[in-house]
């Protein structure tokens, strides 16, 4: 069957389409990631749950402001390490275990005797305290400057005495260099504290360094988990949903459509009744009702214990809804093929009717099955995101929809990394599939109108 496909004119036309070949390459890259994650377990849900950075850390492109760096340092010292390093470390027998638990991804506390760790920790805390004091001073100084500026603006606009403004300006001229000096001191002290942190928790080297780099290059979400792990793990979820839904719909749609088109009579009436019934309600309403059937169930809505089963509701909802279009297309094509000579010849030879359908008719609808598969794949991925956004799809585990849904409020804090990563990865996959299905349509079904 594939040999026949390869010799067809459509196949040559398809492979000559350069854009489609590039898009196929992109899909190949996504598929490789899918296989790596799904089959080899390169990324797991546990990786996605792990904290690797302070919350909402931006990715590698964005330079953090000094204040943000200071806040991140404070998080390391006060929340993370503060609770992770016990004060009786030196006397504890399980000291190394306790330190291992303080790791953030691949970044671990230095592998040294407990005394040395405590020494570095004390040094870090002292430096952080110094930076903190400087930060408070700096804030005071800058607030004072701001106040004086406001007073000057007020007095000027209300036409106040000139000499008062002049004396305020003098005061400002005195304060500004002081504040600048404080800022420089603060920055150098911050750099020192950061160096102390790196000494206590050195950046991983070699392979671990590459892994850590991958985990942190897109920053972290609102609870400090790696965005890149979430975004790339979601490729697996998207492929899973796309493959299952598209396969199920193509199989159901082809079987019912071919049966309806070939046998006619009551089978056709029944199938067309189902098709018209399911299309007489907006598909998103149908999807919502069908996937809500599973919500709240212990078995199918339990992302912690049975994350895979949470996807079942999406399979069922989309599988029952989306086969309709395929069935319609295949039915029309089969009705056309049914009256062709080779089918009559097969009937004259005496082949049974089911055999003719399976052997002679369905293979001639392969091109439509391919086109529908790629269209359904896109539809499944897009609707997963929409349903997750409406709270009826995936939650509590990584998926593009869940990522966008969880991070939509971060936009108002000018934090785009979560939404951006999910959207860009999804855009790449959907675009590649759109281009491929266009090219397939051009090559194999040229008479089709959009």
């Amino acid at each position, binding site marked *: 069957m594939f040999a026949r496909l390869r010799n067809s004119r459509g196949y040559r036309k398809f492979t000559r389409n350069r854009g489609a070949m590039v898009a196929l390459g992109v899909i190949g890259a996504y598929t490789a990631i899918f296989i790596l994650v799904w089959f080899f377990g390169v990324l797991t849900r546990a990786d996605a749950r792990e904290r690797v950075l302070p919350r909402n850390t931006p990715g590698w492109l964005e330079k953090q402001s000094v204040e943000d760096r200071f806040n991140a340092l404070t998080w390391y010292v006060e929340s993370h390490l503060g609770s992770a390093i016990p004060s009786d470390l030196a006397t504890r027998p399980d000291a190394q275990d306790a330190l291992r638990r303080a790791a953030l991804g691949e970044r671990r506390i230095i592998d040294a005797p407990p005394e040395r760790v405590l020494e570095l920790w004390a040094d870090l805390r002292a430096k952080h305290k110094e930076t903190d004091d400087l930060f408070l001073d700096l804030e005071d100084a800058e607030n004072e400057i701001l106040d004086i500026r406001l007073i000057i603006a007020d007095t000027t606009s209300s036409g106040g005495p000139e000499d008062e403004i002049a004396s305020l300006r003098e005061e400002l001229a005195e304060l500004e260099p002081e504040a600048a000096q404080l800022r420089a001191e603060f920055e150098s002290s911050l750099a020192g504290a950061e160096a102390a942190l790196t000494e206590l928790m050195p950046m991983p080297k070699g392979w671990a360094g590459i892994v850590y780099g991958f985990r942190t290059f897109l920053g972290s979400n609102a609870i400090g988990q790696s965005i890149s792990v979430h975004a790339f793990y979601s490729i697996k979820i998207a492929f899973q949903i796309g493959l299952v839904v598209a396969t199920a719909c193509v199989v159901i749609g082809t079987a019912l459509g071919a049966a309806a088109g070939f046998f006619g009579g009551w089978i056709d009436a029944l199938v067309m009744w189902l098709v018209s019934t399911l299309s*007489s309600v907006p598909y998103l309403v149908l999807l919502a009702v069908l996937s809500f059937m599973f919500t709240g169930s212990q078995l199918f809505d339990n992302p912690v214990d049975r994350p895979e089963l949470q996807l079942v509701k999406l399979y069922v909802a989309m599988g029952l809804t989306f086969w309709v279009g395929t069935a319609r297309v295949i039915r029309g094509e089969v009705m056309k093929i049914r009256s062709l000579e080779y089918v009559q010849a097969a009937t004259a030879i005496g082949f049974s009717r089911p055999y003719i359908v399976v052997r002679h008719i369905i293979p001639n609808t392969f091109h439509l099955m391919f086109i529908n598969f790629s269209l359904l794949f896109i539809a499944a991925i897009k609707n997963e995101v929409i349903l997750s956004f409406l709270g009826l799809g995936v939650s509590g585990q990584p998926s593009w929809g869940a990522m966008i849904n969880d991070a939509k409020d971060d936009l108002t804090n000018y934090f785009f990394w979560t939404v951006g990563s999910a959207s860009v990865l999804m855009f790449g996959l959907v675009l590649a599939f759109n281009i491929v299905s266009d090219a397939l349509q051009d090559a194999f079904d040229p008479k089709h109108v959009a």
Partner: protein
Amino acid sequence: MWAFIVRKLLYNVPVYLGIIAILMLALRVNDPTYTFLGKNATKDQQDRLRTSMGLDDPFAVQYGRLLGKVFTLDFSEDSWAQPGRSVRAIMISAIPKSLSITIPTLIIATFVSIWIALVAAYFRGRPPDKTLMILAVLGMSISYLVYILFGQFFGAFLPDQPGGIGTPFAITGYEPWLLGEHADPWNWVTYCMLPVLIGVIVTIGYDTRFYRAVMVEETGKDYIVTAMAKGATKPKIMFVHMLKNAMIPIITRVMATLPFLITGSILVEVYFKIPGMGNELISAIKGNDFPVVQAFVAVFAAFFIVSVILTDVLYALVDPRVRLS
């Protein structure tokens, strides 16, 4: 023609009965008493609520009761999640809000995409056409959610910050603009225009591709060759001869989307917190509010079936070659 209409209506009776049955079955998988009474309700309380909701009758009885209500157009039943509001009141207040977004979206999107498609078809195969089609595919590949999130961010949130350029659009919400006591037409700009713009941008990609394909197919027909042979100019052929004939599939497509106007754009309404039909539906589905969902689907399916039949009839009236059989 009347024979055709009657036959079509009869043919669609099983379809109508089917969709209501499927929907009722799917809804009844969940136990609504759980939603309304919470985890700690006693068995007795649950039973009493179930009886008062009519859920312990056999399915056939519940089905018959709903059909009876639909055929007598009796939507006075109270919503379960919003006690005191009848289903009719909910639909009457929600549908106009949806329409004030979906109708402008449909009109603007159709006009704009017909124009873009005309330009693309005019320059078929040349750079303007290719650029427009690449843009259409790019636009189609971006998720609806991304348009909504970034549309709201750049259209309403960012310009409204201190030092921003200012914006006429509200971040979320809805106020009446046409009917009601405090109606102010400017409210439409404030609350509806941004959702409309987002909806237009989302649909333009799909529509443009479809309309261009229709037009390109039309330009291959014999009457175009005839017109060219007679020396008509290319713009005249494109805008007069071709556009008239391309209107038939375009109108068919627009007709097919008409019933969907009353559903509203669910995502936009949910995100912009517009209390339209889409928003009411999603909260009714998530709140196990059976009467609202059932009544809406009954009304929608009726609209849908009637509009499909009407499209066929109109088609035959416009194009004498089409026979209603």
